[in-house]
């Protein structure tokens, strides 16, 4: 089995000291091997943002794409190389804002990939504008009077579209993070992992203590991850005034993944299929047009 070291490289992250992304980084270095993966058996697809630089700081196959486009790139990748484990890592602005449409369609397709969203409720890399998950009234440079957009509820959105794995975790709880990530990596289909991640530079109102005071583990409160309505009720708790549920809110493995159903993939991964076919088939193409 690989170890965290196998996934490490010598590049020092550019994140601010204290940034919640370090926790996610450490969790990934441990979750990946724990899920039985090696650097060349995973493809980590990221978007653009602070946290999307994740694959620059790992020894792993990586695609660092465009702001908001991690999911379609990952979908194309998965379809062409479906025995690779595909893990997306990106920010809330990236995944839920710019990438919202890809998010919703990835969910309903149940494409087999892990979608880790580093949710710091702000745009970090562009220096602190409000994000789709920002709390109402959040004062930023693009909302000097406080935001008036109500926050997006991404877990509820995923559930509403029949997501097969919906989870949340918190960057200060390494064990919890690892457990949730490993479960996601072993899941059949699309797995959403929303990570509560403090941004110490631009979202000081939501610091580690703020989160610590609010998070609670759903599995310690009799939650049934097979009950979609219960999951929805938990999802609606946050964003909100009260507590923040973490853990696996919902999971089912009864739904086939998208890639399981694509006829072309029955003969094996696309990337390994020969480019030339049985010569007899070619004539038929011309006959169709004759």
């Amino acid at each position, binding site marked *: 089995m690989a170890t965290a070291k196998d996934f490490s490289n010598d590049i020092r992250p550019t994140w601010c000291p204290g940034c919640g992304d370090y926790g996610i980084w450490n969790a990934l270095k441990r979750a990946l091997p724990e899920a039985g993966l090696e650097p060349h058996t995973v493809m980590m697809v990221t978007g653009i943002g602070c946290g999307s630089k994740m694959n620059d700081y790992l020894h792993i*196959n990586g695609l660092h794409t465009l702001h908001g486009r991690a999911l379609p790139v990952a979908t194309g990748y998965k379809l062409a190389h479906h025995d690779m484990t595909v893990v997306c890592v990106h920010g809330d602005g990236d995944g839920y804002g710019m990438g919202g449409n890809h998010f919703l369609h990835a969910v309903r397709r149940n494409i087999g990939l892990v979608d880790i969203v580093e949710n710091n409720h702000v745009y970090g890399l562009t220096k602190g504008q409000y994000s789709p998950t920002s709390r109402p009234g959040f004062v930023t440079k693009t909302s000097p009077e406080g935001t008036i957009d109500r926050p997006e509820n991404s877990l509820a959105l995923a559930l509403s579209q029949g997501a097969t794995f919906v989870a949340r975790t918190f960057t200060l709880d390494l064990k919890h993070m690892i457990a949730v990530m490993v479960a996601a990596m072993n899941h059949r289909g699309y797995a959403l992992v929303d990570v509560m991640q403090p941004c110490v530079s631009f979202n000081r109102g939501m610091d580690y203590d703020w989160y610590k005071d609010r998070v609670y583990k759903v599995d310690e409160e009799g939650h049934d991850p097979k009950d979609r309505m219960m999951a929805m009720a938990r999802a609606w708790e946050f964003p909100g005034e009260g507590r923040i549920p973490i853990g696996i809110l919902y999971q089912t493995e009864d739904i086939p993944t998208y890639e399981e159903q694509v006829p072309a993939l029955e003969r094996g991964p696309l990337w390994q299929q020969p480019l*030339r076919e049985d010569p007899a088939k070619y004539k038929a193409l011309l006959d169709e047009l*004759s």
Partner: protein
Amino acid sequence: MTHTDFVFRIGGEAGQGVESSGAGFATAFTRAGLHVVAVPDYYSRIRGGHNFFSIRVSPEPIYGLIERVDILIALTDETIERHLEAMAEGGIIILDDQSQVSGESIPASVTLLRAPLNEIAEKHGAAVMANTAAVAVAAGLVDFDLDYLKGVVRDNFGSKGEAIVDANLAVLTDAYQWVKEQASFGRTLKPQESPKRIACNGNEAFAMGALTAGCKFVAAYPMTPATSVFEYMCKHAAKWGIATKHAESEIAAINMCIGAAHAGARAMAPTSGGGFDLMTEGLSLAGMTETPLVIYLAQRPGPATGLATRTAQTDLNLAMYAGHGEFPRVIMAPGTPEQAFDCAHRAFNIAEKYQCQVIVLSDQYLASSIFSQDRSAFNVTSPIIDRGKLLSAEEVEATDEYKRYALTEDGVSPRALPGSSPKTVYLATGNEHREDGHITEDASLAEAMTLKRNKKLEGIATEMQAPTLYGDPDAELTLVGWGSTCGALVEVVDILNAKGKATRLVHFCDIWPFPANARKILGDKAVIVVEQNVHGQFETLLKQATGITVKGHIHRVDGRPFTVEYILRELEA
């Protein structure tokens, strides 16, 4: 001027079978060894309105659309009104005998043939077969062997069951018989011996090219006039092992293609201008990550939704310059289905050899017009497949400190596919990067990488094919065209040369990098550029790349394709 060609035109409402009849006619004539150019004219609606299909057929080679109509099938009265002016002397208009059209406005030189189309159709089942009856009447008028039409009916309706086939065959026979007793056109259209041909439009040819080039992944969002390329790939996907994804948007489509291409699948995204706009950020990402991609861009008149089902050559500049930042790209604009097929093969090879993006520029006219083409011209069985510096399994094994973006002399770095080995784990990023793929902001590395990427243009330039020279090589008058206007221009050149006005055509399929030898072929004489846009987009590029003098240009910007006559008229003006 005597001529040996015939032009049939079928007009009616959307939903009346104009399209299927037109295509069926084209197939039948092609099977009879005749040359065919068949051009649809549709409104952006599903039913109603006025659509028509012009089928030009000739025992001699023909290439383009002309305006004259010999036999008009008027499925609606409006058809007569709209096309009367185009009727040839001695032309015949076929209409249903129950039509209220008085015929008063019909000149003496044109015959109004009132045929019991609905009656025959209804006798054998339903009025929807009136178009079948009309086609048989048209065929009977020129004494065209009915067996060819019967064959097409069998093929087209076969999947709908014996009863439907039989009914249509009965309609054909009755209508044919009817006309034989009633009327005939002055000339006849006989089958002839000839090399085997296929009848296909530009989209089918391009898609067949992509399929046989080993395209394994297509992501798209339906958009006229590119949709049928996608649909062709979907139709063949299961059997040929192609993953096709109808994506949530063109943005998703191009990014899915990037993912798939990065994995190692030959990937393609067909679209039209508006969809291409949405793909341009992804295009830029592919440029930065050096991901091979083929984009099929079928033009239609814009801006915005414009004339969604019509034709234009207004997106050359878009294809050339869209996508932020600087990276090499390739543009080809095939002039015929045969060239479209060929471009598909070349596009996938060039994309992989130079790890770049190839845009094949088509338009609605080429995309949906049917041309008879020599079957032998389509090398489906053994096209060259060149994946460039893609590392083989053995090469990967022999690798040591793999660098995906190694600085090389030609700018092309050896490419290992992720997952192929623990030795070739790497990052690809849209940020500026080091040779190993990781992010850098170092000034000299940034400069080196920028130059590396753009250096690839030099290699690509060696792949570009010279424009085609047609007609009198020493002629004073040179017409220059690109893409789909080829056919009409060839005929213009023939006509002028036949008239004693020495003319030649220089037609560009490969457009960017601008073919190095173009300047020599063009020579020093001033030229006239013919294209379907206002701004003279190709003209600008031509002047810039060659310094040649352009003494005039002919533009058509009403969404309709160039006809031979249109160009001749403009030349005279």
